[in-house]
């Protein structure tokens, strides 16, 4: 994207928070919502707009687990590793997903379709063990269910649905 266009877009996001104390984290949330991660060129523009050194922005991004510096896959697969999920088989689900997608947590698949991550408690411990894909939460998941769930989101399945 052209720098001017990008600048305008980021300015739009930042403007709603301009002048408010402690706005940096909230602006970063909106940027991540928009782009899926916090690209470096956006940080650069943001630094100018908010008049905050780039180092301060990166200081915040790298401290919080929620912010990403690399683009995520099309579908984010989150495996809950809260205590309840851990006890009820979360680690096995993670193992199965690593095996199926051939990635480690924090990586995207080669085709960019899936991004695998481990999360700390999604707050639905009654449903343990839980796997979340995008916004959809799957509760009471068993190891044998995983391949079926993933197949739902594969490129082939999506192409079929589109047709």
């Amino acid at each position, binding site marked *: 994207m052209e720098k001017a266009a990008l600048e305008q877009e980021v300015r739009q996001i930042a403007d709603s928070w301009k002048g408010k*104390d*402690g*706005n*940096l*984290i*909230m602006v*970063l*949330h909106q940027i991540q919502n928009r782009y899926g991660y916090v690209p470096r060129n956006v940080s650069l523009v943001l630094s100018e707009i908010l008049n905050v050194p780039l180092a301060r922005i990166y*200081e*915040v991004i790298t*401290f*919080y*687990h*929620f*912010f990403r510096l690399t683009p995520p896959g099309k579908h984010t697969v989150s495996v809950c*590793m*809260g*205590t*309840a999920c*851990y*006890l*009820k088989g979360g680690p096995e689900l993670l193992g199965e997903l690593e095996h199926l997608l051939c990635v480690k947590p924090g990586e995207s698949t080669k085709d960019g379709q899936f991004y695998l991550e481990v*999360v*700390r*408690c*999604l*707050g*639905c*411990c*009654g*449903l*343990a063990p839980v796997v979340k894909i995008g*916004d959809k939460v799957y*509760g*009471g998941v068993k190891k044998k269910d995983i391949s079926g769930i993933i197949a739902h989101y594969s490129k082939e399945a999506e192409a079929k649905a589109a047709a």
Partner: protein
Amino acid sequence: MAKTVFIKDTAITGKDRTRDFYGLFLGVLREKGLDTTIQLVRLADMGIYSAGIAVRVLPDNHLYTQVGESDIAGIVESIKTGQPYQPRLTKQASTQMRIVLRNCGVIDPEKIEDYIAHDGYHALARCLTELTPEQVIQEMKTSGLRGRGGAGFPTGMKWEFTRKSAGDQRYIICNGDEGDPGAYMDRSVLEGDPHSVIEGMAIGGYAIGASKGFFYIRAEYPLAIERIEKAIKQCHDNGLLGSNILGSQFSFDVEIRLGAGAFVCGEETALLASIEGKRGYPSPRPPFPSVKGLWGKPTCINNVETLANIPVILFKGGEWFSKIGTETSKGTKVFAVTGKVKRSGLVEVPMGTTIEDIVYGISGGAMSGKSVKAIQTGGPSGGVIPKDYFQTRVDYESLQKMGSIMGSGGMIVMDEDDCMIDIAKFYLGFCVDESCGKCAPCRIGGTQMLRLLEKISEGRGVPKDLEQLAMISRAMQKASLCGLGQTAPNPVLSTLNYYRAEYDAHVNDKKCPACKCSKLLSFLIRQDKCVKCGMCFKACPVGAISGNREKGYVIDQEKCIRCGQCFEVCKPAAVLRQ
């Protein structure tokens, strides 16, 4: 005869049948010409799980679970007469008492009218018209309410300190950064009854003299954020937030700030740093936030559950509240009972209820065929309580005496298959991940303890390691800067205290009694029990099992990766795991 019927499919797996069932139910109502007098509502969450289709009839408050198609006619008939339909009637455990969760699953959280109809904002009106801020604080002190975030500091006193601190601007903050893995009561309250938290904050703001409040909510809770946003807007539209609330001199407004996935931000000084838009580093106390908090101004930080208690206390009086609970801990506490338990979910009981009543009475004990070994309260900052001590009554002091803490109310049930070293390792791993790295005792101590635990669970432990674990624990408790580091050794200390024998078995005999630590396991095929079906042979992912259907099968220990697949598939239980 206007009645309301709530419907929800509470099964946690498979397709959600709520909509289908709703259609069937509506069909029956239409048939009988009752669809205009009985309102049918599909709920997103009823607070009950794994109980099939659940139906609740209000105002009769009859709850039916495992409802089938054939029951609809009977239930409709019973709605007409007001008498319960016996075959599916479910009694909710009577030991529960709902104060915090009073409206969750009862009102529509997106409608302010519903909340007001359930005595909402009456307490705020009473405070603004009848009571001075000092009287509000006095009422809170009479109630004896203590902070529900974990530490249990008396809320009335916290308010008083903040009020008495000099400053031109004061703040009140709602701590909704519920980071304890395995606890979700704050999320349920924010989602199920957002207005009660806002009302609690407004009353707090009035009492301490704050004109501004902040919600700090985890970004992982999108629905909670959405509901609070909606609720704030409704308050503005109805004159319950903004300037001159309800025509009084009091002006108050709130804003939402999001967390970004850092457990340490639940600690109050780190939370302040995060709201200020910085890294969530804690800072030494004193000065306490009540003196010098957000942007250097006096600030009061209350937990979600604490704030949800406040409207009820001011509506019914501190005197009423102080009659519930024990001598030192008043009111009720919400626990998230999860893990290896039959009915996991939120449970609200008066302080002083025994653990036994919660785990067995309300939650139904362990899942089929197993027995409960222990519970863990307080999450990564708490400790385990073995089942021999289940007569303990839950309040702040008695849990602390047991080497655990109340915490925010997570209660994880563990059964005989859970290894205590594995649990300690899990919690410590969590704290190491979440340590902010500012102070050395937490950063280095945590990592070293985790290494020792890994060593023990892999069978490389020596007796001296256990002493070393205890020593590092003491150093972390004494020298860490904030609550995270000071309490991080608790899971290790409490398991060491109650389950020393299990540690010894790992260190001395190189065995894991719960058969969980995979490096210490071995698998053998018992030839006397083997039926030579070949299932294990097919299941083994690394080809460590050799043989055929005539001779039988053996496991090559060199090749075996101890995944346990053969153990799981063997029907006659001929695979021995030890």
